[in-house]
Protein backbone atom coordinates (compact mmCIF):
# COMPACT_ATOMS: atom_id res chain seq x y z
CA UNK A 1 0.00 0.00 0.00
CA UNK A 2 1.23 3.47 -0.89
CA UNK A 3 1.72 6.02 1.86
CA UNK A 4 -1.26 8.29 2.28
CA UNK A 5 -0.49 11.96 2.65
CA UNK A 6 -2.89 14.87 3.23
CA UNK A 7 -2.66 15.90 -0.44
CA UNK A 8 -3.86 12.49 -1.60
CA UNK A 9 -6.66 12.55 0.96
CA UNK A 10 -7.63 16.07 -0.07
CA UNK A 11 -7.62 15.20 -3.77
CA UNK A 12 -9.91 12.16 -3.26
CA UNK A 13 -12.32 14.26 -1.19
CA UNK A 14 -12.22 17.09 -3.73
CA UNK A 15 -12.88 14.70 -6.62
CA UNK A 16 -15.82 13.14 -4.78
CA UNK A 17 -17.28 16.57 -3.97
CA UNK A 18 -16.82 17.99 -7.44
CA UNK A 19 -17.82 15.03 -9.56
CA UNK A 20 -20.57 13.56 -7.42
CA UNK A 21 -22.20 16.65 -5.98
CA UNK A 22 -21.05 19.52 -8.22
CA UNK A 23 -19.86 21.36 -5.13
CA UNK A 24 -17.14 24.00 -5.41
CA UNK A 25 -14.24 23.64 -3.00
CA UNK A 26 -11.76 25.98 -1.42
CA UNK A 27 -8.59 25.13 0.55
CA UNK A 28 -9.47 27.61 3.30
CA UNK A 29 -10.97 25.99 6.37
CA UNK A 30 -13.07 27.87 8.89
CA UNK A 31 -15.15 26.40 11.70
CA UNK A 32 -16.70 29.74 12.68
CA UNK A 33 -20.40 29.28 13.37
CA UNK A 34 -20.24 25.45 13.51
CA UNK A 35 -21.51 24.04 16.80
CA UNK A 36 -22.12 20.46 15.83
CA UNK A 37 -20.73 18.39 13.01
CA UNK A 38 -21.86 15.08 11.66
CA UNK A 39 -19.16 12.46 11.77
CA UNK A 40 -19.27 9.65 9.23
CA UNK A 41 -17.15 6.61 10.08
CA UNK A 42 -16.45 4.10 7.35
CA UNK A 43 -14.54 0.99 8.34
CA UNK A 44 -12.73 -1.20 5.85
CA UNK A 45 -11.32 -4.67 6.33
CA UNK A 46 -9.21 -7.28 4.61
CA UNK A 47 -5.46 -7.43 4.01
CA UNK A 48 -5.51 -3.74 4.93
CA UNK A 49 -7.98 -2.65 7.60
CA UNK A 50 -8.81 0.73 9.03
CA UNK A 51 -11.26 3.56 9.01
CA UNK A 52 -12.03 6.74 7.11
CA UNK A 53 -13.69 9.49 9.12
CA UNK A 54 -15.34 12.52 7.59
CA UNK A 55 -16.71 15.46 9.61
CA UNK A 56 -18.90 18.20 8.16
CA UNK A 57 -21.91 20.28 9.19
CA UNK A 58 -25.34 18.94 8.28
CA UNK A 59 -25.74 22.04 6.12
CA UNK A 60 -23.16 20.69 3.68
CA UNK A 61 -25.09 17.41 3.52
CA UNK A 62 -28.17 19.44 2.62
CA UNK A 63 -26.31 21.21 -0.19
CA UNK A 64 -25.03 17.89 -1.58
CA UNK A 65 -28.43 16.22 -1.26
CA UNK A 66 -30.07 19.17 -3.02
CA UNK A 67 -27.55 19.00 -5.87
CA UNK A 68 -27.89 15.24 -6.23
CA UNK A 69 -31.65 15.25 -6.34
CA UNK A 70 -32.33 18.65 -7.95
CA UNK A 71 -34.43 20.06 -5.11
CA UNK A 72 -34.18 23.23 -3.00
CA UNK A 73 -31.75 23.05 -0.07
CA UNK A 74 -34.59 24.09 2.28
CA UNK A 75 -36.61 21.01 1.37
CA UNK A 76 -33.87 18.49 2.25
CA UNK A 77 -34.70 16.49 5.38
CA UNK A 78 -32.07 15.99 8.14
CA UNK A 79 -32.02 12.26 7.29
CA UNK A 80 -31.28 12.95 3.63
CA UNK A 81 -28.55 15.44 4.56
CA UNK A 82 -26.88 12.76 6.69
CA UNK A 83 -27.39 10.26 3.87
CA UNK A 84 -25.56 12.57 1.45
CA UNK A 85 -22.55 12.86 3.79
CA UNK A 86 -22.55 9.08 4.21
CA UNK A 87 -22.38 8.73 0.43
CA UNK A 88 -19.64 11.37 0.22
CA UNK A 89 -17.54 9.30 2.64
CA UNK A 90 -18.29 6.13 0.68
CA UNK A 91 -17.25 7.59 -2.66
CA UNK A 92 -14.16 9.29 -1.19
CA UNK A 93 -13.06 5.99 0.37
CA UNK A 94 -13.54 4.17 -2.93
CA UNK A 95 -11.51 6.76 -4.84
CA UNK A 96 -8.77 6.82 -2.23
CA UNK A 97 -8.39 3.07 -1.85
CA UNK A 98 -8.20 2.61 -5.63
CA UNK A 99 -5.21 4.96 -5.64
CA UNK A 100 -3.27 3.51 -2.74
CA UNK A 101 -3.98 -0.23 -2.66
CA UNK A 102 -2.91 -2.91 -5.11
CA UNK A 103 -5.68 -5.23 -6.42
CA UNK A 104 -4.45 -7.98 -4.08
CA UNK A 105 -4.75 -5.85 -0.95
CA UNK A 106 -7.99 -4.02 -1.82
CA UNK A 107 -10.12 -3.96 1.37
CA UNK A 108 -13.88 -4.42 1.70
CA UNK A 109 -15.90 -1.35 2.69
CA UNK A 110 -18.44 -1.54 5.51
CA UNK A 111 -21.65 0.46 5.66
CA UNK A 112 -20.87 4.06 6.80
CA UNK A 113 -22.12 5.09 10.26
CA UNK A 114 -23.19 8.67 11.07
CA UNK A 115 -22.99 10.28 14.51
CA UNK A 116 -22.86 13.82 15.89
CA UNK A 117 -19.77 15.41 17.36
CA UNK A 118 -19.19 18.85 18.90
CA UNK A 119 -17.33 21.03 16.40
CA UNK A 120 -14.77 21.88 19.08
CA UNK A 121 -13.78 18.23 19.41
CA UNK A 122 -14.43 16.55 16.06
CA UNK A 123 -12.00 18.24 13.69
CA UNK A 124 -9.11 18.37 16.14
CA UNK A 125 -9.41 14.70 17.00
CA UNK A 126 -9.74 13.45 13.48
CA UNK A 127 -8.37 16.06 11.13
CA UNK A 128 -5.74 15.00 8.64
CA UNK A 129 -6.95 17.06 5.72
CA UNK A 130 -9.43 19.91 5.67
CA UNK A 131 -11.07 22.10 3.10
CA UNK A 132 -14.15 24.17 2.57
CA UNK A 133 -17.01 23.16 0.28
CA UNK A 134 -19.61 25.80 -0.61
CA UNK A 135 -18.40 27.69 2.45
CA UNK A 136 -18.81 24.70 4.79
CA UNK A 137 -15.82 23.09 6.54
CA UNK A 138 -15.03 19.43 5.81
CA UNK A 139 -12.34 17.34 7.47
CA UNK A 140 -11.23 13.88 6.56
CA UNK A 141 -8.96 11.37 8.25
CA UNK A 142 -7.75 7.98 7.14
CA UNK A 143 -6.04 5.49 9.36
CA UNK A 144 -5.08 1.86 9.09
CA UNK A 145 -4.78 -0.64 11.90
CA UNK A 146 -1.46 -2.30 12.59
Amino acid at each position, binding site marked *: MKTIDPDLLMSALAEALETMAFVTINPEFDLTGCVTLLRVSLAFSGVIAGQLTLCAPRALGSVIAANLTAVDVESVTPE*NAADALRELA*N*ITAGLLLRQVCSPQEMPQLAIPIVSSTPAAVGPHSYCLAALSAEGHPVTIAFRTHA
Partner: protein
Amino acid sequence: MKTTCLIVDDSAILRTMVARAVRLSGAGVETIVQAANGIEALAVLSATPVHLVLTDIHMPEMGGAELLAHMQADAKLAPIPVVIVSAEPSIDRMEDLCRNGARGYLRKPFSPENVRALIVPLLEQQHENN
Protein backbone atom coordinates in the same frame (compact mmCIF):
# COMPACT_ATOMS: atom_id res chain seq x y z
CA MET B 1 -43.25 -2.27 -24.33
CA LYS B 2 -43.14 -0.14 -21.19
CA THR B 3 -39.75 -0.28 -19.58
CA THR B 4 -39.45 -0.50 -15.81
CA CYS B 5 -36.21 -0.13 -13.89
CA LEU B 6 -35.69 -1.18 -10.25
CA ILE B 7 -33.14 0.80 -8.23
CA VAL B 8 -31.88 -0.87 -5.05
CA ASP B 9 -29.89 1.16 -2.53
CA ASP B 10 -30.19 1.72 1.23
CA SER B 11 -29.69 5.44 0.67
CA ALA B 12 -32.83 7.32 -0.39
CA ILE B 13 -30.64 10.11 -1.78
CA LEU B 14 -28.70 7.66 -3.90
CA ARG B 15 -31.86 6.04 -5.21
CA THR B 16 -33.09 9.47 -6.26
CA MET B 17 -29.71 10.33 -7.79
CA VAL B 18 -29.55 7.08 -9.77
CA ALA B 19 -33.17 7.52 -10.87
CA ARG B 20 -32.34 11.01 -12.07
CA ALA B 21 -29.28 9.73 -13.95
CA VAL B 22 -31.41 7.02 -15.59
CA ARG B 23 -34.00 9.62 -16.66
CA LEU B 24 -31.32 12.05 -17.91
CA SER B 25 -29.60 9.23 -19.82
CA GLY B 26 -32.46 9.18 -22.33
CA ALA B 27 -32.54 5.39 -22.22
CA GLY B 28 -36.33 5.37 -22.49
CA VAL B 29 -37.10 4.03 -19.02
CA GLU B 30 -40.75 4.88 -18.31
CA THR B 31 -41.19 3.65 -14.77
CA ILE B 32 -38.71 3.57 -11.93
CA VAL B 33 -39.41 1.54 -8.80
CA GLN B 34 -37.20 1.46 -5.73
CA ALA B 35 -36.12 -0.81 -2.89
CA ALA B 36 -33.86 -0.19 0.11
CA ASN B 37 -32.21 -3.63 0.19
CA GLY B 38 -32.21 -7.05 -1.45
CA ILE B 39 -35.20 -8.36 0.49
CA GLU B 40 -37.36 -5.42 -0.55
CA ALA B 41 -36.07 -5.80 -4.10
CA LEU B 42 -37.18 -9.46 -4.25
CA ALA B 43 -40.63 -8.41 -3.01
CA VAL B 44 -40.86 -5.78 -5.76
CA LEU B 45 -39.66 -8.27 -8.37
CA SER B 46 -42.33 -10.78 -7.36
CA ALA B 47 -45.08 -8.17 -7.77
CA THR B 48 -43.94 -6.00 -10.69
CA PRO B 49 -42.55 -6.75 -14.15
CA VAL B 50 -39.03 -5.27 -14.17
CA HIS B 51 -36.71 -5.00 -17.17
CA LEU B 52 -33.52 -3.83 -15.48
CA VAL B 53 -32.14 -3.84 -11.92
CA LEU B 54 -29.52 -1.34 -10.73
CA THR B 55 -28.24 -2.35 -7.30
CA ASP B 56 -25.72 -1.25 -4.72
CA ILE B 57 -23.53 -3.94 -3.12
CA HIS B 58 -23.29 -2.98 0.54
CA MET B 59 -26.75 -2.79 2.11
CA PRO B 60 -28.21 -3.97 5.43
CA GLU B 61 -30.55 -7.01 5.51
CA MET B 62 -29.51 -8.29 2.07
CA GLY B 63 -26.75 -6.86 -0.12
CA GLY B 64 -26.38 -6.75 -3.88
CA ALA B 65 -24.34 -9.96 -4.23
CA GLU B 66 -26.97 -11.97 -2.36
CA LEU B 67 -29.78 -10.36 -4.36
CA LEU B 68 -27.97 -11.32 -7.55
CA ALA B 69 -27.56 -14.92 -6.31
CA HIS B 70 -31.29 -15.13 -5.48
CA MET B 71 -32.22 -13.80 -8.91
CA GLN B 72 -29.84 -16.18 -10.70
CA ALA B 73 -31.39 -19.12 -8.84
CA ASP B 74 -34.91 -18.17 -9.94
CA ALA B 75 -35.77 -19.07 -13.54
CA LYS B 76 -38.23 -16.14 -13.81
CA LEU B 77 -35.79 -13.54 -12.48
CA ALA B 78 -32.51 -14.82 -13.96
CA PRO B 79 -33.05 -13.20 -17.41
CA ILE B 80 -33.48 -9.70 -15.92
CA PRO B 81 -30.19 -7.82 -16.37
CA VAL B 82 -28.57 -6.65 -13.14
CA VAL B 83 -26.11 -3.76 -13.05
CA ILE B 84 -24.01 -3.11 -9.94
CA VAL B 85 -23.77 0.55 -8.85
CA SER B 86 -21.16 0.98 -6.15
CA ALA B 87 -18.19 2.87 -4.78
CA GLU B 88 -16.55 -0.54 -4.30
CA PRO B 89 -12.82 0.04 -4.80
CA SER B 90 -11.99 -3.46 -6.07
CA ILE B 91 -12.43 -4.12 -9.80
CA ASP B 92 -11.80 -7.80 -9.07
CA ARG B 93 -14.88 -7.95 -6.82
CA MET B 94 -16.98 -6.13 -9.42
CA GLU B 95 -15.81 -8.58 -12.07
CA ASP B 96 -16.54 -11.52 -9.76
CA LEU B 97 -20.13 -10.28 -9.62
CA CYS B 98 -20.19 -10.12 -13.42
CA ARG B 99 -18.95 -13.72 -13.57
CA ASN B 100 -21.84 -14.56 -11.22
CA GLY B 101 -24.47 -13.05 -13.47
CA ALA B 102 -24.29 -9.25 -13.24
CA ARG B 103 -24.33 -7.64 -16.68
CA GLY B 104 -22.07 -4.73 -15.82
CA TYR B 105 -21.10 -2.24 -13.19
CA LEU B 106 -21.07 1.51 -12.61
CA ARG B 107 -18.48 2.88 -10.22
CA LYS B 108 -19.47 5.95 -8.26
CA PRO B 109 -19.07 8.77 -9.05
CA PHE B 110 -20.66 8.34 -12.48
CA SER B 111 -22.36 10.54 -15.07
CA PRO B 112 -25.68 10.08 -16.95
CA GLU B 113 -23.49 9.29 -20.01
CA ASN B 114 -21.93 6.37 -18.12
CA VAL B 115 -25.43 5.17 -17.22
CA ARG B 116 -26.67 5.48 -20.78
CA ALA B 117 -23.67 3.65 -22.27
CA LEU B 118 -24.29 0.71 -19.97
CA ILE B 119 -28.07 0.39 -19.83
CA VAL B 120 -29.19 1.21 -23.38
CA PRO B 121 -27.72 -1.99 -24.92
CA LEU B 122 -29.15 -4.05 -22.05
CA LEU B 123 -32.63 -2.60 -22.52
CA GLU B 124 -32.45 -3.07 -26.30
CA GLN B 125 -31.56 -6.70 -25.75
CA GLN B 126 -34.47 -7.05 -23.31
CA HIS B 127 -36.87 -5.60 -25.91
CA GLU B 128 -35.57 -8.03 -28.55
CA ASN B 129 -36.03 -10.97 -26.19
CA ASN B 130 -39.61 -9.91 -25.43
